[in-house]
């Protein structure tokens, strides 16, 4: 119903007038009208404005990048577009028609497809079956499924898109990047007018990123409108035509990519120079406290060895999917791995999170929601969980007074605001949740604290507090391992940096010698040997 107007070619839609399904262009060129126009979009969550009067438009044959910090509202804006909310206000014009998008399915039918980071392919189906899902033909009386048409249809699309895919291969066996291609092909079959990529490169290696960029450029040259969400600014000059920056739910501006520099975009994203958020470093590394040797998990990381000193901040830099989180999970005993980890010169036998906690190793995990918060419990309970044994009175009974006193102390120390220990942790902001989890390990008096993406999804103010906290911990002799996708954090905070690429430790750098851009180049660099 939203298709087949004058300018639109519909390459694969079976209902198109172009009955033989001959591939043609997605759109006529030279069409100045935007495919999508969003005006004054407002979306509130429980009283706070996640989107405040945001305008956004995409033209045919354009890649429009949408950037902003975590929590700036870029995902919320795209979720409005994908039909995940029905209570937004504002105008959306799609294909020249004013629309209200209230369900994901409606968005799909209109011609909007979102390729999320978490791909939604069917691992148990073949490439062809995935691409043609929802459009299978069946015979009239026997209701027999027409498998030949599935394969033929898929083959046609794959050829048209020039994707490097085998229609008969089960999708579960493909690499992440190829699964992404399958999802793109499946979306484009359905007469898609607007394709949204939500951080597509976050889990891809550098070769796959190149390949994906090739595909995106090809689609753009054929006239498809695309939105590209990212927080990796370095990618934008390669892939985007225009950039819109969001900050705290508001639009900072839209610019042609040729008109702006990365540093300018950074300032637009943050509202100030990021460097200002970093406090002076005052810590001094001491003697070795943790030593990893030959850590190996086949297919994930290989032969990782390093030392960590008291009072040292050790940064681990690498792209998502390079194995950096898996390495620290292995140290913490959350995953099995070969190799040894020594703590104060003695190997830790049978690593497990509970043993590490007892020794004094703590971890602030990457995924707060899944691995950190004990949801449905109060702030106080979440703060106390790691030291319940120590707070317990005689016979192991928990004394409510001890628990409450300790929680109050930690809330004060972590500057959690509002200081209400009985609040459900789910109702706290991302920054406060993170403070609770950090507080948990402080309480356990951990000697080594692993921070995996500690500033993910928290606002700049809290970030700054988090930096100060990390440096302060190091100054007081705690050893810190820091992982972050925001390479500037590693460059500014770490004393030493391990660069991980494709599961291998490729370089060790001194923190003071490097900056964000050099680190990015280091993490994403291709191995010439391959």
């Amino acid at each position, binding site marked *: 119903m939203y298709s087949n107007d004058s300018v639109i070619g519909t390459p694969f839609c079976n209902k198109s007038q172009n009955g033989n399904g001959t591939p043609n262009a997605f759109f006529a060129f030279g069409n100045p009208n935007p495919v999508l126009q969003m005006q004054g979009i407002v979306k509130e969550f429980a009283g706070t404005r996640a989107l405040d009067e945001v305008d956004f438009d995409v033209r045919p044959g354009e890649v429009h990048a949408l950037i902003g910090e975590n929590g700036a509202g870029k995902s919320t804006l795209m979720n409005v577009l994908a039909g995940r909310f029905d209570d937004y206000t504002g105008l959306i014009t799609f294909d020249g028609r004013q629309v209200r998008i209230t369900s*994901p*399915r409606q968005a*799909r*039918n209109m011609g909007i497809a979102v390729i999320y980071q978490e791909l*939604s*392919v*069917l*691992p*148990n*189906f073949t490439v062809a*079956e995935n691409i043609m*899902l*929802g*459009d*299978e033909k*069946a015979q009239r009386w026997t*209701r*027999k*499924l027409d498998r030949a048409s599935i394969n033929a249809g898929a083959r046609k699309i794959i050829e048209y898109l020039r994707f*490097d*895919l*085998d229609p008969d*291969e*089960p999708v579960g*066996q*493909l*690499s992440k*990047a*190829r699964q992404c291609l399958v999802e793109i092909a*499946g979306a484009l079959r359905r007469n898609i007018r607007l394709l949204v990529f939500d951080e597509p490169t976050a889990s891809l290696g550098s*070769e*796959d990123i190149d*390949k994906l960029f090739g595909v995106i450029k090809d689609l753009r040259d054929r006239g498809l409108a695309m939105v590209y969400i990212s927080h990796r600014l370095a990618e934008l000059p390669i892939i985007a035509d225009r950039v819109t920056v969001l900050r705290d739910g508001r639009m900072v501006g839209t610019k042609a990519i040729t008109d702006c520099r990365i540093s300018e975009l950074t300032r637009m994203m943050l509202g100030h120079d990021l460097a200002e958020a970093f406090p002076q470093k005052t810590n001094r590394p001491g003697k070795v406290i943790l030593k990893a040797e030959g850590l190996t*998990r*086949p*297919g*994930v990381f290989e032969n990782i060895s390093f030392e960590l000193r008291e009072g040292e901040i050790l940064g681990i830099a690498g792209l998502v999917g390079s194995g950096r989180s898996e390495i620290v999970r292995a140290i913490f005993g959350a995953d099995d791995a070969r190799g040894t980890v020594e703590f104060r010169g003695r190997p830790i036998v049978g690593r497990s999170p509970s043993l590490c906690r007892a020794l004094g190793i703590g971890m602030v995990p990457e995924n707060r929601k899944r691995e950190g918060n004990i949801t449905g419990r109060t702030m106080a309970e979440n703060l106390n969980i790691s030291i319940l044994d120590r707070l317990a009175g005689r016979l192991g009974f928990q004394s409510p007074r001890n628990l409450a006193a300790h929680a109050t102390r930690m809330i004060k120390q972590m500057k959690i605001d509002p200081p209400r220990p009985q609040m459900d942790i789910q109702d706290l902001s991302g920054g406060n949740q993170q403070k609770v989890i950090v507080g948990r390990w402080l309480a356990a008096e951990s000697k080594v604290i692993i921070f995996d993406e500690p500033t993910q999804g928290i606002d700049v103010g809290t970030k700054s507090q988090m930096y100060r906290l990390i440096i302060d911990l190091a100054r007081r002799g705690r050893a810190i391992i820091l992982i972050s996708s925001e390479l500037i954090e590693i460059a500014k905070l770490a004393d030493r940096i391990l660069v991980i690429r494709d599961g291998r430790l490729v370089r060790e750098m001194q923190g003071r010698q490097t900056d964000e851009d050099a680190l990015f180049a280091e993490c994403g660099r291709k191995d010439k040997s391959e």
Partner: protein
Amino acid sequence: MSNDTKKPYAQRIRGALSFRKLQQASILLLLVGLCAFASYRSPTFFTWTNLVDNLLTNAAALGVIAIGMTFVMIAGGFDLSVASTTVVCSVVLVLTMDVLSPYGAAVAIPAALLLTALVGIVLGAANGVLIAYVGVNPFVVTLSTMLVFRGLALILTGGGQAKQVADIPLRNQFNWVYDAQLPLFGQSCQVSMPIVIFLVTFCLGIYLLRFTRFGHYLYAIGGNEEAAWLAGVNTHRIKAATYVLCGFTCAVAAAIFVAMTATAQAESHVGKELVVIASVIVGGTPLGGGSGGLTSTLIGLLLLRVIDNLLTQFSIGAEYRKVVTGMIIIIVVTVDVLAKKRSRK
């Protein structure tokens, strides 16, 4: 990423021979091995009487339910209420035959069978609507309906007295559902009616599952329900349909049970739902769905029955048989979990 399709041929073959297939093959091998062992140790095992008359005929009714359960489980669902549904159907069948008997067998039996099928479908639909459309967890829904249906059967029989088919005038006209022997392989090797019913249902099921769009979508929903829904698959209707199908297979099984035991008792078949689910899982359809199939369910069912039969032949008590059955489920599922862990690494 370009090396995915350019992998050496041998490697791609190995990929195709996935662990799941190997696991299924190993269960088949286990089944064959057990049969071989059984016929070596016990002279009566590999006889037509034991295998077909005894083992298969007894397995047929539960096998029919297992077919319905396989549909439910491939789409990622779960049905604990099958035994209770079967009991309600049995009671309805006997009661209607009793009530309608004055009209003669030609009217009463088809009418009663029709009504029973309808009851099975309605009970299944109740599960299906609650699970697929309302969105309540299948475990909770079917655990509750398991109790509700069982209570319904008790109410219908006035507090749980057995309804004897022997008490109703039509009993001789209905016995064929169990007693009829079809001389498929000559007079000495006859096949009983329950087996025929099972085979017919099985073939229909295979057709639905493997060759229709409906079957295709069941795997899609089991694989990733959200993706299937976004692709335009009516996941609600299809999920609900699996429970309806399952309810219908319970009605079919009820007819076999009534003919076999000549009675409908509200308190029979307790715990049979677990046997059915066990055979589906042992066969290789995982909890959560997305893969598996009817052949694997058949293998799972036969494996459990053969072990049961074998233990009976060695006169090992029912209490030990329960232990063994439970342990086999654990072993099979553990192997599956370990295999998945390994293939992920």
